[in-house]
């Protein structure tokens, strides 16, 4: 098959780039091997949460510091104006699929984790951050954290204890509770697989939502704020949220917990349906295994399912993610990028890949390993030549640490946007 642009990798970065490309009229395919990291994410979009291990409140100001000091950082290559534009683009695209993202007027806000810690982020879904949450938050006196009896992946008591230590909640009573949900009687027939999705599917049924709302109202006992694990519906979450809030007259807040993440799933669904709606071709469950090049220009790629039939395009975006997603492979004493065998930034000695402790303050070096690119996000091959028609975006890029800096999704979106922009302008030039 022939395309204008083939994007390898169907996660947040690949999809953002894909949507941008099809919107501009490029015949675009995304090849994705397995579901992406969005399924384990918080469902909030972090732009920049920490610099030098200090919490960032003003991400765009902090960006200047960051880009000023780390020349290789993907954000430096994007530049602030493009990052701002990319984020707006992303927000609007999500909105077309009824996923509404809220920010704190260019400031970071915090979302509560399953352990009751607070993490800075930029965009959140409506059930995590919005103006009501912001306003009610200031005068809040009582929070109730609820779990549904039998659900093993959330422990409200742990969250409550940790949250109450925070200065912000000093004057607030935080109560942890478990509630019984009649609909769960059947589900516990096989408690083996009893995950967030199973409960989220109960919420998909409107009749159930009304009954759940009544149970929540009873359990809340005069609280201002009710916190539940994130499973308020996969598709009809806006409606579920509205019903729950209006029927209980409470603010209902969602916390993402052990995977799969329903909040992340919503974004994944939104981006995929947007891409399909615009006419993009999404090839799921296939893996690009090799490429064919000629004079530093990639001609075609081949996949596991079609080892002999080329998929051809004028441009390629490599958004295959980190080690988890298979973007990079680590071996006993080696690391490599499997599709184009690109030049990587990494340490050859295995014992340099990690830090002495799991929760080491400076995180782990391997998270910063990745593909080295020029300022246009074009990678180098093993002979140090720039590959002309390939661009890299997202977690495969080197020189940033998504967790330590709290910038994973921001980098994924910005670099995707930049890569797509360049392809689009070249494509237009060619026409």
């Amino acid at each position, binding site marked *: 098959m022939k395309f204008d642009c083939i994007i390898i990798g169907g996660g947040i970065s690949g999809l953002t780039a894909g949507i941008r490309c099809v919107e501009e009229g490029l015949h675009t395919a995304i090849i994705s091997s397995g579901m992406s990291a969005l399924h384990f994410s918080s469902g909030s979009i972090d732009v920049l949460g920490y610099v030098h291990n200090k919490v960032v409140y003003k991400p765009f100001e902090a960006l200047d510091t960051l880009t000023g000091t780390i020349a290789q950082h993907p954000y430096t290559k994007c530049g602030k104006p493009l990052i701002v534009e990319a984020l707006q683009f992303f927000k609007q695209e999500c909105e077309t699929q009824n996923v509404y993202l809220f920010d704190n007027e260019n400031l970071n806000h915090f979302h509560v984790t*399953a352990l009751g810690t607070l993490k800075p982020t930029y965009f959140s879904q409506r059930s995590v951050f919005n103006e009501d949450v912001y306003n009610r938050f200031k005068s809040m006196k009582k929070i109730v954290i609820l779990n549904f009896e039998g659900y*093993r992946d959330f*422990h409200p008591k742990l969250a409550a204890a940790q949250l109450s230590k925070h200065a912000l909640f000093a004057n607030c009573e935080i109560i942890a509770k478990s509630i019984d949900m009649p609909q769960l009687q059947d589900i516990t027939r096989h*408690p083996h697989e009893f995950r967030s999705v199973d409960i989220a599917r109960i919420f998909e049924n409107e009749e159930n939502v009304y009954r759940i709302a009544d149970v929540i109202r009873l359990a809340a006992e005069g609280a201002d704020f009710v916190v539940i694990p994130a499973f308020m519906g996969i598709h009809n979450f806006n409606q579920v949220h509205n019903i729950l809030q209006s029927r209980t007259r409470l603010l209902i807040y969602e916390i993402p917990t*052990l995977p799969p993440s329903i909040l992340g799933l919503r974004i994944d669904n939104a981006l995929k349906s947007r891409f399909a709606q615009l006419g993009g071709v999404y090839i799921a469950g296939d893996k690009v295994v090799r490429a064919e090049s000629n004079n530093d220009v990639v001609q075609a790629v081949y996949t596991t399912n079609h080892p002999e039939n080329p998929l051809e395009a004028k441009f390629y975006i490599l958004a295959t993610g980190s*080690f*988890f997603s298979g973007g990079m492979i680590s071996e006993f004493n080696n690391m490599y990028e499997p599709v184009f065998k690109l030049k990587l930034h990494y340490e050859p000695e295995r014992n340099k*890949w990690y830090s002495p402790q*799991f929760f080491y*303050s400076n995180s782990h070096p391997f998270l910063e390993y990745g593909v080295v690119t020029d300022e246009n996000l074009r990678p180098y091959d093993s002979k140090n030549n720039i590959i002309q028609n390939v661009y890299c975006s997202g977690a495969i890029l080197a020189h940033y640490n998504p967790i330590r800096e709290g910038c994973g999704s921001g980098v994924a979106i910005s670099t995707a946007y930049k890569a797509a922009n360049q392809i689009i302008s070249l494509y237009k030039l060619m026409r």
Partner: protein
Amino acid sequence: MKTLETEVIIIGGGATGCGVLRDCTLRGIKAILIEKNDIASGTTGRNHGLLHSGARYAVKDLESATECIKENRILKQIAWHCIEPTGGLFVTLPEDDPTYHNRLLESCKFAGIDAKEISVKKALAIEPNLNPNILSAIWVPDGTIDPFRLASANILDSVERGALVFTHTEVERIMLKQNQVAGVQCYDKIAREYFEVYAPIVVNAAGVWGQHICETAGIELKMFPSKGSMVIIDYRINNVVVNRCRVPSDGDIIVPGDTVSLIGTTSRKIPYDKIDELVVDDDEIDILLADGEKLIPNVSRTRVLRAYCGVRPLVAVSGEMDGREISRGVVLIDHKERDNVQGLITIAGGKLMTYRLMAQMTTDLIAKRIGNKKRCITHKMPLPGSEKRVGYTKKIKYFSGIPNSVVGSTHYRHGERVHNILSLQKRNYGLICECEMVTLGEVEYAIKNLKVKDLVDLRRRTRIGMGPCQGELCAYRAAGLFTEFGEFTPDTSTKLLKDFIEERFKGMKPVLWGDGLREFEFTYWIYQGLFGLGLVEEEEQ
């Protein structure tokens, strides 16, 4: 300060200490065991879990070999739920000295070990993953033994019979009254308080740490610690023990242990002051994997879960020697005779296999000192869980409604005690650890009955967090249950979670590549990225 009184104080909750406690209790001697960490957290729990037939010692150390096969037969009777009589093979590789094969056969015969030569074809039929290029094979009655369950069952039986056990409690010093032992001063590391226990007899069963225990009583006892490292493979790559038929050396054994396989072992001398900060060296991993691959070629294609090491408790009888050279024979010291300190007994050396025998020898001495006339019955008294031998099929039928994988795994771990754990209530068999099929009921049982003080202890009792995901899903689930089932505050639970993740990471570090690195990245996303566990401030002490 709290004080307690008893007849015998046992220092050290390894297999030997636990065995002494049980033997004393069964003979009606009042005893208290004090362990600085957890049951089976030292050398006992840090070996490859081989139920020796004795064949590995047959050529060089006949005495050990004979002891082994004797205890092998006893343990299969009294502790069957901790044991899998898998059988074992000794295989000769093309590069090995072919004469060792016959020497081994003859020595086994001499030691009374039922070893027999089998054809290469038959060996490959028994163990299809074996290197097909082997030259010859010997079948021996090796097996596997779970040291955690073994030690824990000894404790459980003793406690049910009235003994007291303090884990996470350090012995600060042995108190003497002139030349007579008066008791010990302890520090409870969790409650952060000191207390004293008085008794006329103190048994030093602290293994390699026994040197330090003796020092607190002003006695010199020299240990020669030797480190042994092992790696754990993701699944059971072999179903029988595979030994290399040669003079014992690094990387010559692969033991199937429950759902995984272990490649052992290296041997390196280490200074005594380093015994608490052991690390597996990168080159040890290289050796173990390279040699493991020679026995079972599949090793190179399989995910390595962890590497860990233990320290062999070799008592220096005279002079310094290589770790493997010193006899692993039992050393029982009556310090009254050696150092003129009455009431102090040190039991050291030996092997996991001979823990019961060592306990018997020690308790015989104790009994003699306090005038107890009862005879040892530990060789015929089954441990809790091993009372009745019932096969899987019957158990699975009994608990029909609960998935076979759950019933089978729980029964495998706890034997007959499965009836104290599983119930047909749905919530009871909800899975906490999905890799190893640890249910909510099992966690509850362990927290309430098995002296569990943290997630690492829980792991030793249940295998939680020991599967391929190394705690990624179950750690958080289980941490919350400490608040639910035990007297733990939510803050403690969170702290235990953090400690557990760090503990798991320690063993993952040396083998972080391939899927191991992917798993680690994923776990890091969850616990640091999604949960912000690293942001939880440790309470100031």
